[in-house]
């Protein structure tokens, strides 16, 4: 009995030790609310993406800060922010000083959640998601990289235009923030010095609600709940009165509607083509080039992912031909055989480092995809450089328009050249990642990443070398994984840079440099 007692103590302390090493794992970017590096008072004069001018969207002239209606709102803020419940405090800390980061995380998380390829029917055919009936299996959407990049481009572009309108009215009406009007109001976020009418937080919430609810229709309730909490948190934090929020919300919805109108006719509805069109692309490639790509899954998927994504409307590139790469080397040519020999050598002698790189950048099914990965990098940089919401929206807008243009350009090349994957062209070849369901040339990872790195390098010059190195590594990762030839990746990098430069040229002239 005497021996059991010390054993029990050792057992219990070991249990405690190992339980305590299981710290909470991070589910979001952990950052402290920060003061903005700049306020960009002239932001309302910058060039919008789709709007003609900021005052195209109207909001009511706010009441004076001496009006009884305003004073009632102010008293409500004072009462609400004086003492927060634990849940209210958590909400304020979560949404924090730059709520674009949280909404971007939500968009990325929904991408991961819906990034699952449809399962085959019992008879070997494949069903497709249906936007009209999103809840029927396979759920709508299947948020593959083309879907994800488009969703993020509309979200980012709409945020940028909406915050430009927001800034225009902020500095037109110059309504001081509640804590400026009444210094005794308790604030729970840095007092950023922005005029408070209309509320930038409410604009961000409204744009996110409209765009994300349209892109992920089954998540409408979840998104609505998030937006409601976000808007309430602005009052709890002592940052806005109710009329600031109402005006910010209404202009956000109006701008988001303009972007969703573009989305309805941008060609995405036809991108996932029926089989006859898909077959005709394959036949055209066979006739023109003497080769074509085929899906190798069992049962065979009859149509690749979005054959007509290359026809979707571009943002900053004039047309796909302007950035279409040269034809790939013909299968069997010396250049092709060199690339094949390299792939076989890598497959036979894969190092731990190469495997780690392949896995790190895999961003395949069930993840936020490469566009999501680059948005994550961007969010980290926004915090590092203390960007205000307008400037963050600008970064997200140009980044995601470039990434979507890169996707369109890459998909144009993929289905124009219809080039076979290594697994289809090399007998007995084994890959360490699953081969995606679309042609090989050029590499999507490479094109997305080079376009993204070009924009991030322009906006954050001190990070250019790091961003370019990430893009190069993302491109190499696909060769290590055995799912792309070196020429897919190298040409993809060149193509992505060319696409990214078009976005940078637009950014240079928009007044926000």
């Amino acid at each position: 009995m005497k021996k059991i007692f010390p054993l029990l103590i050792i057992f219990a302390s070991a249990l405690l030790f190992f339980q305590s090493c299981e710290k909470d794992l991070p589910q979001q970017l952990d950052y402290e609310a920060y003061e903005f590096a700049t306020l960009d008072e002239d932001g309302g004069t910058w060039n919008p993406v789709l709007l003609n001018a900021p005052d195209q969207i109207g909001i009511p002239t706010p009441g004076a800060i001496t009006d009884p209606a305003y004073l009632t709102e102010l008293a409500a803020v004072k009462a609400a922010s004086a003492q927060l419940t634990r849940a209210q405090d958590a909400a304020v800390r979560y949404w924090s000083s730059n709520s674009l980061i949280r909404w971007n995380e939500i968009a990325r998380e929904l991408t991961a959640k819906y990034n699952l390829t449809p399962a085959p029917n019992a008879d070997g055919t494949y069903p497709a998601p249906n936007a009209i009936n999103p809840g029927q299996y396979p759920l709508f959407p299947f948020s593959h990289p083309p879907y994800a990049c488009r969703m993020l481009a509309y979200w980012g572009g709409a945020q940028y235009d909406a915050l430009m309108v927001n800034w225009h009215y902020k500095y037109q009406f110059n309504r001081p923030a509640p804590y400026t009007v009444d210094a005794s109001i308790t604030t729970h976020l840095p007092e950023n010095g922005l005029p408070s009418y209309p509320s930038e937080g409410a604009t961000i919430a409204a744009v996110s609600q409209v765009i994300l609810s349209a892109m992920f229709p089954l998540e409408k309730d979840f998104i609505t709940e998030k937006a409601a909490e976000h808007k309430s948190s602005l009052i709890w934090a002592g940052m806005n009165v109710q009329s600031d929020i109402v005006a910010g919300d209404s202009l956000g919805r109006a701008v988001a509607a303009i972007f969703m109108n573009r989305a309805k006719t941008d060609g995405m509805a036809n991108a996932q083509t029926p089989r006859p069109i898909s077959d005709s692309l394959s036949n055209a490639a066979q006739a023109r080039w003497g080769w074509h790509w085929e899906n190798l899954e069992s049962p065979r998927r009859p149509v690749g992912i979005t054959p007509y994504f290359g026809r979707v409307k571009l943002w900053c590139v004039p047309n796909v031909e302007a950035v279409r790469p040269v034809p790939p080397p013909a299968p069997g040519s010396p250049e092709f055989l060199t690339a094949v020999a390299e792939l076989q050598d890598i497959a036979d002698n894969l190092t731990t480092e190469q495997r780690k790189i392949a896995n790190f950048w895999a961003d395949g099914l069930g993840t936020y995809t490469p566009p999501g990965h680059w948005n994550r990098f961007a969010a980290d940089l926004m915090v590092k450089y203390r960007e205000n919401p307008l400037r963050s929206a600008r970064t997200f807008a140009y980044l995601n328009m470039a990434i979507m243009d890169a996707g369109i350009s890459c998909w144009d090349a993929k289905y124009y050249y219809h080039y076979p994957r290594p697994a289809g062209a090399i007998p007995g070849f084994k890959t360490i990642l699953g081969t995606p369901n679309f042609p090989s040339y050029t590499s999507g990872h490479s094109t997305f990443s080079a376009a993204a790195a070009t924009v991030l390098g322009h906006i954050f010059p001190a990070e250019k070398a790091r961003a370019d190195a990430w893009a190069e590594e993302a491109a190499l990762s696909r060769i290590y994984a055995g799912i792309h030839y070196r020429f897919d990746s190298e040409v993809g990098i060149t193509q992505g840079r060319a696409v990214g430069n078009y976005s940078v040229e637009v950014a240079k002239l928009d007044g926000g440099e």
Partner: protein
Amino acid sequence: MGICTIEFRIPALTTCLPDSAQGFKPCRQYQTGSGIYVRGQGAFHLRGNCVIERDYYYTTQGFYTDEVDMPDAITYGAVAGIWLFNNSLKIEASFDGLKSLGGFDIRRQDAGFPSNKMNFTRVGGGLQYYFPFVKGFGVVASGGYILTGRNVGQSLALSGGVTYQFGIW
């Protein structure tokens, strides 16, 4: 931090009939009596985090880390067997299982993940036979069938082999 997993195994029941005083080798020592034996085992697996080669993953929500919180688990099992023909043939039947105390389900068309909620029960059996004419030589065969499972495929596993036992000192 790397992987920290510790396991506590509690021999829930170790009853060897009729002679259990032979330590680790009771199964070969049933020279007397009927040669029937039963064995039971239970374990609690307190699992820490494992590390994967990417720093974002989605379970039922997103995680921005390369660490994965592994669900704790219980394993249990029982074996009943008999030695026949002068201890040259062993026949045994087994039942065992795994129960995860946490984790999440694999979604349709998603890949498996380390922290999936994996449960199963399995029945199995085994044979071991020592040839009477060559000392130490024997053959073994065993099989297991997953009866019920969650995030575990229903499967039958069969194995067979040749054994040779010899003394080192």
